[in-house]
């Protein structure tokens, strides 16, 4: 019996890198799950941003809820040039699991759900939107401030097949 939940690709950085890209993503699945275990190489806080299919236009938006140890807040970004997939701070590790639903259909805009954990600072839940009906074939990640991902950061992409 064919596997339903399959690893598509993994990238473990051998040296610090400004961007991480998964390309030529097969359309053979229904959903994608993207797991990030990464750190940034500076002492500053930084957001992990994501774009699909190399689209750098203002075609993204997101709504989030954040808890920082004392308060819960919510915010959003509209007409953004990238989505929110993670949060790094002060050279510490973060992890995030992103659910990318129905990524290969060509009917709907693409919604994704991110749960982001940075135990030193905060945790996030985020819903992202890419206003495009194209199948997702490429995912690019980068730090919002232009910094690097640490060496040893891992990025793994899985595919899930529906019946």
């Amino acid at each position, binding site marked *: 019996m064919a596997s339903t939940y399959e690893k598509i690709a993994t990238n473990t950085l051998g040296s610090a890198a400004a961007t991480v890209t998964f390309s030529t993503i097969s359309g053979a699945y229904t959903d994608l799950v993207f797991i990030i275990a990464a750190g940034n190489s500076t002492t500053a806080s930084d957001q992990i941003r994501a774009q699909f299919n190399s689209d750098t236009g203002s075609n993204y938006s997101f*709504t989030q809820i954040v808890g920082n140890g004392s308060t819960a807040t919510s915010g959003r970004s509209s007409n953004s040039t990238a989505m929110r997939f993670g949060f790094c701070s002060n050279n510490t590790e973060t992890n995030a699991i992103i659910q990318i639903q129905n990524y290969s259909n060509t009917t709907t805009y693409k919604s994704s*759900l991110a749960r982001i954990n940075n135990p030193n600072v905060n945790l996030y839940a985020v819903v992202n*939107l890419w206003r495009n009906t194209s199948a997702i074939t490429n995912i690019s990640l980068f730090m919002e401030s232009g910094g690097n991902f640490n060496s040893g950061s891992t990025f793994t992409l899985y595919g899930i097949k*529906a019946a």
Partner: protein
Amino acid sequence: MAASTNSYESIATTTVGSGGSATVTLSSIPATYTHLQVRCIVRSTQAAANFGVLMYFNGITTQASNYSAHALRGNGSSASAFGGTTESIQSVGAGANATSGVFGAVVWDILDYTNTNKNKVVRALGGYDNNGDGIIQLSSGMLYSSQPVISSITFATTGNDFAQYSQFALYGIKGS
């Protein structure tokens, strides 16, 4: 012993057709797994920004005396919480006022669904974004009035129908 590569299996998928549908039921769920996961994209035909996606088990659709639920949500400007002991298990999707093509997304996890000694507990992460409005919601819920094996799951809306292309995919996760 090598881990099985087939511990996560697709059970059934339903996609709403052009006429819309007030409910979607995933029935005849086999009891051969340990946990269930439902992954869906959802939009309503109701003329509103958003709507509630309700989850019922085994045809038990009365929330009072059967279900409890709590949720933590953010609407882009503030965080809030709601819930209680007469609350349906629920998440959120995009309403018909959202831009065409915008669907909410929800991932539901139903743990130990065949255990007849436990109330059945669900967690969900769901939300929609419509480039200027949106909701992100973390949910928990429980069927507390009985402890049946879950053999069917029904999804309903808080208003009108699920719109065309809404999709519900059910997966089984095996234990050891």
